[in-house]
């Protein structure tokens, strides 16, 4: 952001790169939402069983309420 913007040289309308980026971003968001809703959840509980971290067998799960969006520090 050092050089001043050259707005005179900007073509009218939305540039192609903006549209391409927008489509990619939309696809990523849709995939992310799809995985959140139908991918069995997201967060530490998705990767292991239901026991706590002190589980003697080492097959550990999240403490209650630890999922994305909950108990945010």
């Amino acid at each position, binding site marked *: 952001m050092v050089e001043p913007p050259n707005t005179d*040289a900007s073509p009218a309308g939305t540039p192609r790169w903006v549209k391409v980026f927008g489509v990619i971003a939309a696809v990523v968001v849709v995939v992310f939402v799809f995985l959140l809703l139908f991918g069995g959840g997201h967060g530490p509980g998705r990767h292991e069983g239901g026991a706590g971290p002190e589980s003697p067998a080492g097959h550990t799960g999240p403490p209650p309420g*630890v999922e994305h*969006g909950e108990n945010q520090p």
Partner: protein
Amino acid sequence: VTLKPGTRKLALTTHVVSSVGWLGAVVTSLALALAGLTSEDEDTVRAVYLAMESIGWFVLVPLSLASLLTGLVQSLGSAWGLFRHYWVVYKLLINVAATIVLLLYMQTLDHFARVAAVASASPGIPDALRSPSPLIHSVLALLLLLVATVLAVYKPRGVTPWGQRRLAQQRGR
């Protein structure tokens, strides 16, 4: 709001340092995640997850917030503006999204660190510490930050409708 040249240089320097530092810390996390996923040594794997949590809270989170804050100051204090150019808007969206995901994912890293800190009764590496999740998140974060860096360097042309209206107003004065 237009910053004085000295202040603008300072804001730019802090923005570049925090953003590049964030990128470097993500690469470090990626290396640790890879080591945690592939190492066969239990102590190494546990240490990796404890290190990732520390790097998260003491490096990644502060640098991400600093990058976001200094980016806002830099854009609002210069002729680029915050919503006038598409590349600035995209960079802002990337920064905000990456920071939010990072803050949410810190809960997962906290959980992994708790598992790593507790000795298991059974020998071997706990299953929870064999998750590809840290590696996946590190790779995605790296891709996002690389895109943001490319946008900042190349500054591709494109003025938003808001920016065009502001430009027309300025020319009309």
